[in-house]
Structures are given as structure tokens and as C-alpha cells.
């Protein structure tokens, strides 16, 4: 059982629901980052690389004690993030050590991983940056809030730039936890250093309901609020506010559809089909009978 203090908070889960990612700067100790890089001097899996692991292997059985990979997953903070998002007993889908050589090769096209995937339950992808990443190094770029868009993998390669795209620029030990649907790609490395990133995709084996530290969930959080009311106190940390905050790139008429997507996922996570944010679902569900 993971220490509840290491689990994500309700606010963090709401942010993940709305934006499809969470970032944790310098979460992994430097010493472990250095051991990690030294232990896997090959970009591919297998010899001198990340161990080959059969898809579907329980994460708890996927690593060998005494290795940097095992130590990484044993970190209480990492366990807390994983268990909050996909629960205990998650399965390794695949993992890979991504290298980007400093050769100026074109950036990877924007894409969504795997295939089109309309499920509400979601996989999580953890991207771990064991070394410092500068903007020149072309760290992973990704589009916040893109995780509900139903597109098929590489079909979005035509999109070169979208307003609000984030580029990972970070210190060693930084971690990105991403919803499986987030649009992303590897940037062009214009530096003189190799860029390294370890990515793992994890599948849940339990219902994703209140797996985080939900001690702060209360009735006020779920209570209806006045809408279109400028005088209503604005709280940026309020769950309903988080779920109804648009991304800069949302089309004018798509933002509200994205709020609906977020509310539906939050209901799933909360285990409460009556939850609403700013009345968007309640209005649509109002079908009075005779």
C-alpha cells in the first residue's frame, strides 16, 4: 500500500483530467539519474539497453532488484503517481529508451500513440528525463488538452504547430505523466548533446475510481455554482474552474465540447454520475417526462 501522502491530490487529478498531463520537476534524485544513464548505454531494448519485457507483464514483476530501473519504480513518489492514475497492479504495455542524436534530423511529426482509442479508462505514459534538456535539444513537445480528440495516430502529422504547444525544457530527474491520447512528438536536436528520455506505457487492471488521495473531496466541490457570473469569487484551484478552463488552441465552438469530455471523465474517476461543472451536462441531460 502506497503512503497516501505520496498519492496525487484532487486538484492534480482535475488538472490531469482537463489538460491530459502532469509535470514533476527534478522528482528523481540526481544520483539515480546518473546511474540510470550509465546503466543503459544503448538506445534500444536488450543488450546494454532497457531490458526486454513481454507486453502485459505486471509492473511489479518487470524489473530486476538492484537495477536503476527497479530503483526508479520503487521511488515512493513514482509509485504514488502511478497508483493515483492507473492503480496498483498496473501492467507494462511497452517501454523504450528514446535517444535523439545531435544531428539536426527533422522533428518527429506530431502524433497520438497507438491507435484511435475511444475508451474512457485510460493508459498512462510516463516520460522520464534523466538528463538536463535545453530548448536547443528539442525535448518532447506536446499539446495540452488534446487527449480527448478522436484521431488515429499519425493522421495528424499535417499539423506542424499549434498555439499552446509545450516543449520539455528541464533539469535532470523531471517526469511527465501523460494521458495516452495526448498529441506529441520528439523535437529536432540542434545542440551538441544526445537527448535521452525513458518512456513507459502502463495499463490499469483496476477500475480507475478515486485512486488518488481523495481526502479533500467534499460536497462544496460538487455543488452547483452560479454561471456567467463575473461577481462570483474566482478560484483557480476549484475543480469546476479547472475543468472549464479552455486551452488557447481550442476552436471557439469546441471548448465547450471539451468541457463535456472532461466532466464525463471526472464523473468516471469520481464514481459520481451526478457531478457537473458549470451546468454543462445538467442542461443537456434535462429531458422532463410527461
Amino acid at each position, binding site marked *: 500500500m502506497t503512503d497516501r501522502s505520496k498519492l496525487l491530490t484532487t486538484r492534480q487529478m482535475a488538472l490531469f483530467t482537463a489538460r491530459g498531463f502532469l509535470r514533476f520537476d527534478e522528482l528523481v534524485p540526481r544520483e539515480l539519474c546518473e546511474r540510470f544513464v550509465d546503466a543503459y548505454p544503448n538506445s534500444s531494448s536488450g543488450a546494454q539497453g532497457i531490458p526486454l519485457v513481454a507486453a502485459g507483464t505486471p509492473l511489479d514483476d518487470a524489473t530486476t532488484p538492484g537495477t536503476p530501473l527497479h530503483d526508479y519504480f520503487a521511488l515512493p513518489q513514482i509509485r504514488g503517481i502511478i497508483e493515483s492514475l492507473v492503480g496498483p497492479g498496473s501492467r507494462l504495455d511497452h517501454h523504450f529508451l528514446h535517444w535523439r542524436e545531435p544531428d539536426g534530423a*527533422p*522533428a*518527429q*511529426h*506530431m502524433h497520438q500513440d497507438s491507435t484511435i482509442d475511444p475508451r474512457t479508462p485510460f493508459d498512462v505514459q510516463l516520460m522520464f528525463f534523466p538528463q538536463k534538456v535545453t530548448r536547443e535539444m*528539442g525535448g518532447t*513537445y506536446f499539446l495540452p488538452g488534446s487527449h*480527448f*480528440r*478522436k*484521431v488515429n495516430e499519425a*493522421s*495528424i*502529422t*499535417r*499539423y*506542424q*504547430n*499549434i*498555439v499552446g*504547444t509545450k*516543449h520539455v525544457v528541464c533539469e535532470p530527474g523531471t517526469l511527465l505523466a501523460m494521458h495516452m491520447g495526448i498529441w506529441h*512528438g520528439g*523535437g*529536432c536536436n540542434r545542440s551538441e548533446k544526445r537527448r535521452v528520455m525513458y518512456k513507459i506505457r502502463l495499463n490499469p487492471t483496476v477500475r480507475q475510481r478515486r485512486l488518488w488521495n481523495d481526502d479533500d473531496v467534499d460536497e462544496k466541490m460538487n455543488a452547483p455554482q452560479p454561471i456567467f457570473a463575473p461577481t462570483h469569487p474566482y478560484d483557480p484551484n476549484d475543480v469546476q474552474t479547472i475543468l472549464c478552463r479552455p486551452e*488557447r*488552441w*481550442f*476552436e*471557439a*465552438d*469546441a471548448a465547450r*465540447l*471539451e468541457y*463535456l*469530455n472532461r466532466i464525463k471523465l471526472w464523473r468516471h474517476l469520481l464514481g459520481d454520475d451526478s457531478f457537473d461543472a458549470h451546468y454543462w451536462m445538467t442542461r443537456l441531460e434535462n429531458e422532463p417526462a410527461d
Partner: protein
Amino acid sequence: MEELRQQVLILYLASSALDTPVVGWSVYDGTGRTEPMSADADEPPYKTGVAAMRDGWRLIQLSQLIPPYPGEEFTTSYQRYECVFEKLVPR
């Protein structure tokens, strides 16, 4: 006769109106003088579709307004408002 090559600018707008903000963009250069790629710029080249027209870009295609399929009214997917522009420039 001067040989011409096509440059293509694709703008994704915030709504179906050409004078609304650009939220995404792509550039393909048939001259080979530039090699645009994914995630290579932070700010759009134009604020709106009309601003691109005023700079000489010719609109050659505009995404249609298509009603959602029944059952898909709330689904979000690709960028909704795609405008394709071109310039013909000397090789």
C-alpha cells in the same frame, strides 16, 4: 518563361470566419529554400486568415461546415477550420 514553385500555408482558425485568430499552422515550401518542420515555431505567422490574404497568400481551400454524424455531436477530433493558402514564387 519563369519557372514557378508553389508554397503552401495551412492555417487553422478559431472559427469558420477568416478574420478569426489562427490557432495552428503548417508551411510546405516547394522551392526547397526552407524546410519547415513540426514544432519549429512558437508564434503563428499571421494573426488571422485575412492577415495572410493581405500579405499575398491566395486562399485555395476552406473546410466545409458539415453537420455532426448522429451520435457524434459531442465528439472532438481534427482541427475544425482548416484554410489552405498558396503562393507561386520563382524557383
